[in-house]
């Protein structure tokens, strides 16, 4: 059994939720039309992931396996609602932008997946680190997709113009099809990097 470092790092590259396990693709495709939206969604998901992993790991010996899925869903849905209300109150503009996709974090299979596959079988601290690593990996993935789409589709990065005045925006990249294009090309690139390294 390796240490906490591995538990954290695996989420970032080796088992990256989006690029390696292809989990949580709905938010990864839907809200990544800019870096800032991607990062905000990633952070919201990370919060839910860490909190639900903590609670699930704490209760792992109490919850009978027959009702574990409903129990996990209740825990996850509660934290998602907490994020939803908190963002609505203190990050109103971002809440409006992400809109429907905040409540939809409930059905992000990444979060239920980590509860089921990891937190329900590991001690609390290890589960927290796992949640953090996966969350950071998810946020990074969304930021990368968001950056690619924002640069190509809008000529900006974090709102600053980076492509020069001659650049014609590839509008399709910030429209829904652009999400699939960016995702597919990035997946290919990361797989190629892996192949070269091994």
């Amino acid at each position, binding site marked *: 059994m390796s240490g906490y470092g591995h538990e954290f790092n695996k989420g970032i590259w080796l088992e990256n939720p989006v690029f390696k396990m292809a989990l949580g693709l709905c938010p990864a495709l839907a809200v990544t039309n800019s870096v800032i939206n991607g990062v905000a969604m990633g952070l919201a998901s990370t919060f839910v992931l860490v909190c639900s992993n903590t609670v699930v790991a704490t209760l792992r010996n109490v919850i009978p396996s027959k*009702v574990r899925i409903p129990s996990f869903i209740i825990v996850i849905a*509660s934290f998602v609602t907490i994020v939803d*209300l908190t963002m609505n109150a203190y990050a109103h503009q971002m809440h409006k932008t992400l809109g429907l996709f905040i409540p939809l974090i409930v059905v992000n299979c990444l979060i239920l997946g980590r509860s089921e596959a990891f937190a329900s079988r590991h001690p609390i601290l290890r589960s927290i680190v796992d949640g953090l690593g996966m969350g950071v990996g998810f946020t990074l993935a969304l930021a990368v997709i968001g950056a690619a789409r924002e640069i190509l589709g809008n000529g900006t990065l974090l709102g600053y113009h980076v492509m020069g005045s001659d650049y014609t925006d590839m*509008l399709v990249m910030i429209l829904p099809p652009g999400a699939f294009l960016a995702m597919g090309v990035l997946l290919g690139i990361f797989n190629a990097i892996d192949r070269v390294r091994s």
Partner: protein
Amino acid sequence: MMKGIGRLILVLAVICAGAAFALSLVFAVTKEPIAYQKKLEVIRSLQAVLPGLAIDPDRDFIDVPREEGEALRIFRSPSDDGIAGVAFEVIAPDGYSGNIYIMMGVFPDGTLGGIEILSHAETPGLGSLITEEEWKSIFKGRSLANTNFKVKKDGGDIDQITGATISPRAIAGAVEKGLRWFEANRDTVLAAGEGA
């Protein structure tokens, strides 16, 4: 067997109770800020469509019943001699994707103080340019008397946006309808009387 089921029910009930407790706490804490943000949003849109006029959205309004649909909330800016301007929401149902919600401000003489896009789902980068100040501002000072509320492509006076004609057309139509409604209901809308 019964004992097993009892345990399942108990565990689920306890988890639900815990979740409900946590949520009620968060709800209690965030209720005020959320209401405040919503109010702030209304105030911002009112200031955009009736620049310089003071309106308290909690007090300065009347609800005017319409032939169809629910009553329309009219925000009214009070002044010494009646009403200085009114603002109300119109919906453009024929946008490129989904309804466009518009707040429009009208002075008692029927000229527009301005429009504000409250929410829309138009194409980013094309139709979404309707939210740019530059485009919205072309509505300022227009009225049924001095403007043909059609986009230039349709022979009217409203600038379309390159690559996006449908969204401006929808908005121009909705604003025109709003102005006609205002003219038809002018007496009710401007009538004295307390709102709330």
